[in-house]
């Protein structure tokens, strides 16, 4: 009898006990059940989480504690500190103190603007939520969520610098006057402007004004994450510029070629929402359920790859060959050079050959309902082939649309600028945002070329590598998007306005202006404020004026989008077969079996732009679960072959340069190649958070090969400590000394998934994956009957991609602290929701698949944590929520020890009072470690130190040291909804109002994680309302409880994952059902005692 839990083989450990090799595992250590892993599993936290490091440090600690106690005695002898109430002098229209206001604005990520609602609490922006105005824009991602923290970053640039010396805006304005006179006279000869690739109608308008005034000026863009191959591929295929836009929501079959569609910082939310449309298992009749199918071919493991139904682990250069083979099978001509390449034979094994055949058959069958997408790190040939396949399938206009693209790629543009600088043709260079000295291709050698210009103006939010370069003669700090007016284009081209919520929080003598205002200054524009400039541009766009314009403008600001401005898809010209042949021929010359390193757009720092945001640095990477660093990722087999272990330092050398990086073995990665994310490895200049995070891969990148390079890897001998969370919080009931072939073998698994065919035949498979004995409780169960509300949550594993937007959204909403790398390494991360990532299969070298599972406090009705708290600091309220009472907690941590899901977090320190740096020593503290920054003086002497506190959500307690905390189901949002509903009802007359009682409509309470989820995989609501979405989903046959054998009765239910693989999508594939173990009677109480 095959069993899902034990897989097929067992391994003997040193202790002589047999341990099951689980089918799902978190890491190589988990698969092998190493003694270290077993210890981690048995413990509440990892080693070193609870111990002090060494004698000296312990002594310091005791001294400090002693002093603290003595002072505490004194401090208690008075009323708490006097505080002030400062009301406005003049009343503010439409503002009630303590009632947050939402403003529709937008956030730009890598040139794509995302419409958001920014929540302003008493004038402070504290949270971003997706603005559903565009239909697809309901969710958000980790970067969008974190951008509010950027506003308060104490490391942001605040002072104008002239040649490295502090200066002010007035001096810059004077210089700009001279600039204006000089270049007006010569028509802009010797002038160049480099933007960071952001765009919008207002910036376009300013650009045309700038170029009208200085016609000879050079204008270009460099965004390190933009892809030249997209431009070049389209140019080759169509003979003109074009950008392909896939619509996964319309596709029945998708082939994704090395594109992290679902995890892309700029466009991932859109694609995730589209993808999820065809992935919800909601058909009333299970046998009629349909799902789309996604094939992914990629070198590294991405969010998209983990969500794929079938995945090919292929080296970056082999993906082009793979694409050509698909094209050839579909009858696309001109790809023979690649398809006939020697590598074509090497990229398949028996299993993948079968999958490949299924892929080809699926594409043929789906025809115009299929789509092929090529990724930004692929070469032009792959993009051209994808275009040719889409044309062949007839997908153009259905699952893929083409829009006008840029005439040349950013790589080509910066190369052109580099050449112009080298020739001495550029006298004055204006850099609007970005950081080319750090992220320009190595062969451009931008930092050196910059010195050729006599004046370099660098305008940016951070004083970064470019601003600190000796060539930079002016550094001007930029205002944040929450501090100024502007606009941008959403992913579909819709114009989205950007409105400020707060005045620039910097000295006004230092500017506080944004890019369009800087351009206005440089052009001597009569409009100087961003408000005037944006309105002027919008008058031009709308062609309206006067009251008609005002109405149009107000409407757009209310909606957060300008309706009807989405791009119109262009009529894609036919693919030029001759050009395709030529391109494939060229590409084939570069394909080979040599070791190569590919680059990856990081979902956290996105090329380095957001490197100083602690929320992002601390968010575990969705695939590797590494925090605070990037790594040279490679397959475990490749690492073994090269004699490398996790954490070994290596020197990666390519033609253009070399970098030192540490190795991380990632099961599922393609062999004989490595991948490294861009945007890390910056020095002190990057800010206190970003300093020394990870390894800088830019020196390997050249403008000819922006996606990856052939390189060699040599061990240097050192090792590097990563702080990763893949083995943290192991929720499992396996007990070492109980035989694995007995009771334990029949326990249900944490992740339950099956294939569509199996689901159609057995819609209730999730209920039959194991055996749960009698549901008897060890203690008296909470009586929750008669409650007005029974709050509950469901998490749909079919649509969860593991992107971790929920993790950061929760952090933003609930004042969850950033703890720093050293603390994460000790297992002290504070995230209230984590995303567990599992590999599936028996072999670390060939995982059969991936599974992700968000884990938060499950709010057990029968909660183990409550039974062990000596002071009743964690108890149930009548709505069934397991509440954590901070003011009662004395920090025994018994609750955490007794929590089978390991979702409780302990405040080992006052994390909010310390700088979340990367200090290595345990108690090597910042000078103000024990000082309460905000209360040392009033008003605050150094506002910068208190900046990050301005982001705090006042509706949530800021926890201090020594207390336990955990997910509260966003209690503040529930209370808010309840109080508002009750007030409205009472005001209407109570029972005399015609409504017998007050009620909260379904959907009125939305948790932070639910709101951020791009695929709407999380649903929250009231089980007492049978019509609520959550009540429906809990009743679904797919819903199951984690560790139900413990009889904890969690209020968070999971909906089992249904995948739709191309091969083996038949009756049973590794999942047990109806196997004679007996059934789980959790939903069939009448049988409990007869069992």
């Amino acid at each position, binding site marked *: 009898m095959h069993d899902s839990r034990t897989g097929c083989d067992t391994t003997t450990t040193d202790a002589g006990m047999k341990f099951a090799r689980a089918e799902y595992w978190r890491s190589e250590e988990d698969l092998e059940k190493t003694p270290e892993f077993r210890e981690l599993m048995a413990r509440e936290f990892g080693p070193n989480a609870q111990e002090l490091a060494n004698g000296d440090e312990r002594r310091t600690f005791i001294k400090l504690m002693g002093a603290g106690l003595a002072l505490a005695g004194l401090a*208690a002898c008075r*009323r*708490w500190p*006097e*505080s*002030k*109430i*400062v*009301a*406005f*002098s*003049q*009343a*503010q229209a439409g503002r*009630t*103190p*303590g*009632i947050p206001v939402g403003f529709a604005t937008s956030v730009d990520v890598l040139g794509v603007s995302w419409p958001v609602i920014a929540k302003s609490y008493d004038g402070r922006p504290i949270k971003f939520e997706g603005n559903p105005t565009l239909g697809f824009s309901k969710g958000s991602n980790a970067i969008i969520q974190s951008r509010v923290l950027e506003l308060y970053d104490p490391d942001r640039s605040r002072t104008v610098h002239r040649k490295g010396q502090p200066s002010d805006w007035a001096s810059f304005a004077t210089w700009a006057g001279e600039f204006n006179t000089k270049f007006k006279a010569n028509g802009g000869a010797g002038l160049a402007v480099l933007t960071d690739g952001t765009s919008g109608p207002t910036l376009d308008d300013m650009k045309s004004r700038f170029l009208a005034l200085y016609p000879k000026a050079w204008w270009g863009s460099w965004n390190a994450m933009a892809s030249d191959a997209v431009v070049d591929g389209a140019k080759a295929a169509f003979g003109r510029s074009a950008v392909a836009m896939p619509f996964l929501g319309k596709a029945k079959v998708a082939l994704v070629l090395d594109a992290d569609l679902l995890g892309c910082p700029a466009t991932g939310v859109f694609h995730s929402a589209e993808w999820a449309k065809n992935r919800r298992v909601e058909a009333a009749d299970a046998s009629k359920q349909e799902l789309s199918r996604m094939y992914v071919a990629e070198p590294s493991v991405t969010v998209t790859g983990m969500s794929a139904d079938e995945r090919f682990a292929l080296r970056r250069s082999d993906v082009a060959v793979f694409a050509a083979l698909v094209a050839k099978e579909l009858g696309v001509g001109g790809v023979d050079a690649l398809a006939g390449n020697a590598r074509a034979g090497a990229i398949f094994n028996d299993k993948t050959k079968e999958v490949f055949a299924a892929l080809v058959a699926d594409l043929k069958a789906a025809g115009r309902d299929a789509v092929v997408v090529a990724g930004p790190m692929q070469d032009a040939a792959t993009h051209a082939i994808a275009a040719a396949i889409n044309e062949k399938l007839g997908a153009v206009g259905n699952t893929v649309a083409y829009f006008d693209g840029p005439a040349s790629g950013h790589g080509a543009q910066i190369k052109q600028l580099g050449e112009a600088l080298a020739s001495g043709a550029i006298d004055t260079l204006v850099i609007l945002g970005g950081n080319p000295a750090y992220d320009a291709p190595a062969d451009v050698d931008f930092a050196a070329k910059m010195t050729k210009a006599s004046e370099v103006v660098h305008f940016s939010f951070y004083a970064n590598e470019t601003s600190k370069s000796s060539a930079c003669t002016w550094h001007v700090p930029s205002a944040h998007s929450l501090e100024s007016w502007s606009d941008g284009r959403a992913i579909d081209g819709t114009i989205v306005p950007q409105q400020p919520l707060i005045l620039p929080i910097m000295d006004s003598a230092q500017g506080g202006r944004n890019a369009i205002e800087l351009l206005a200054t440089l052009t001597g524009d009569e409009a100087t404020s961003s408000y005037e400039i944006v309105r002027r541009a919008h008058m031009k766009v709308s062609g309206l004026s006067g009251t008609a314009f005002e109405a149009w403008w107000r409407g757009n600001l209310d909606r957060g989008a300008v309706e009807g401005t989405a791009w119109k898809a262009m009529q894609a010209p036919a693919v030029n077969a001759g050009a395709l042949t030529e391109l494939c021929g060229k590409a084939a010359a570069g394909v080979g079996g040599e070791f190569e390193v590919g680059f990856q757009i990081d979902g956290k720092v996105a090329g380095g732009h957001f490197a100083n945001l602690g929320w992002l640095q601390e968010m575990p990477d969705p695939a590797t679960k590494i925090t605070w660093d990037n790594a040279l990722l490679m397959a475990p087999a490749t690492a073994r072959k090269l004699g490398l272990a996790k954490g070994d330092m290596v020197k990666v050398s390519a033609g253009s340069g070399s970098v030192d990086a540490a190795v991380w073995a990632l099961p599922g990665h393609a062999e004989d190649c490595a991948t490294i994310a861009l945007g890390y490895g910056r020095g002190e200049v990057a800010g206190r958070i970003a300093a020394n995070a990870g390894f800088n891969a830019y020196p390997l990148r050249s403008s000819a090969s922006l996606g990856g390079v052939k390189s060699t890897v040599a061990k240097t001998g050192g090792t590097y400590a990563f702080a990763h969370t893949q083995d943290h919080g192991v929720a499992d009931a396996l007990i070492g000394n109980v035989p694995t072939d007995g009771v334990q073998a029949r326990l249900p698994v944490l992740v339950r998934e099956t294939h569509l065919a199996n689901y159609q035949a057995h819609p209730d498979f999730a209920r039959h994956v194991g055996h749960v004995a009698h549901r008897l409780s060890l203690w008296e169960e909470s009586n929750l009957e008669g409650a007005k509300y029974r709050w509950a949550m469901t998490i749909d594993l079919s649509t969860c991609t593991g992107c971790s937007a929920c993790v950061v959204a929760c952090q933003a909403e609930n004042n969850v602290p950033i703890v720093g790398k050293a603390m994460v390494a000790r297992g002290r991360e504070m995230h209230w929701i984590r995303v567990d990532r599992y590999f599936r299969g028996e072999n670390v070298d060939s995982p059969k698949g991936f599974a992700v599972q968000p884990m938060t406090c499950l709010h057990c009705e029968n909660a183990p944590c409550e039974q062990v708290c000596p002071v009743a600091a964690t*108890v149930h*309220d*009548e*709505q069934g*929520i397991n*509440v954590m*009472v*901070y*003011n*009662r907690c004395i920090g025994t941590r018994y609750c955490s020890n007794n929590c089978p899901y390991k979702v409780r977090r302990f405040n080992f320190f006052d994390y909010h009072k310390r700088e979340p740096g990367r200090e290595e020593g345990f108690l090597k503290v910042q000078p103000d470690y024990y000082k309460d920054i905000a209360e040392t003086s009033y008003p605050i002497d150094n506002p910068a130190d208190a900046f990050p506190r301005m982001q705090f959500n006042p*509706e*949530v*307690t*800021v926890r201090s040291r020594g207390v336990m905390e955990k997910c*509260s189901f966003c*209690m*503040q949002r529930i*209370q808010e909804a309840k*109080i508002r509903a*009750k*007030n409205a009802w*009472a*005001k209407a007359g*109570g*029972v*005399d109002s015609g409504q017998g*009682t*007050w009620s909260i409509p379904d959907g009125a309470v939305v948790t932070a994680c639910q709101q951020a989820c791009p695929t709407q995989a999380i649903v929250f609501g009231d089980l007492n309302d049978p019509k609520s979405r959550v009540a429906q989903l809990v009743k679904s046959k797919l819903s199951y409880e984690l560790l139900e054998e413990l009889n904890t009765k969690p209020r968070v239910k999971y909906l089992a994952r249904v995948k739709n693989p191309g091969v083996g999508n038949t009756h049973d594939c590794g999942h047990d059902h109806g196997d004679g173990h007996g059934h789980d009677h959790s939903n069939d109480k009448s049988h409990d005692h007869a069992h």
Partner: protein
Amino acid sequence: MSRFLFPRWSNLVLPTIILAGATVPIYAIFFVAYGFSPKTLEVGYQPQQPVPFSHALHAGELGMDCRYCHTSVEKAAHASVPPTQTCMNCHTQIRPESPKLAKVKESYTTGLPVEWTRIHKLPDFAYFDHSAHVNRGIGCVSCHGRIDKMEVVYQKSPLSMGWCLDCHRNPDVNLRPLDKITNLSFDSATDLTETERLDLKKKYHISPSEDCSTCHR
């Protein structure tokens, strides 16, 4: 060397220690329980305000409604202290030259706020919502006392958790009709019959929660 002899008074040491051992802990317990209770520390807290604003005059003698100034009390968690503009609505006409109004006028002209000293303060982990109470029959006087008789406002109630729970467990005695919410001289205990109070309780579904999550989040 002669033997050391304890002096005679040392016979008293042991009884003294025993006596102290018996009384000091009792004293200490009493001292801590009484001395540290909010009743001792908080009640009666009456700081001097930057402007000698008299509630006795405005709310008492002149009979102004609380909500003329504390506008958000029915809508938000905070009752809110009014902007300077609210004062000047009248004081541009009434006693504009009074020296007591100097700071108010200064604030009005400069745009800088008057810094009032906060009297009623809950710990940061406790979340009280004014609107939830005043909309459902709990009047201002129940917590703040006879503000209309206070020349300088002081804290009337302990605002301790036990005190909150006393009312949450037995709210009937404090319930009043919604039109009497800001009537500080109205006393539910004497001005309403028990039946009337129970009717109010039924009408507004008053069943105050004693869950931790009601106030702590």
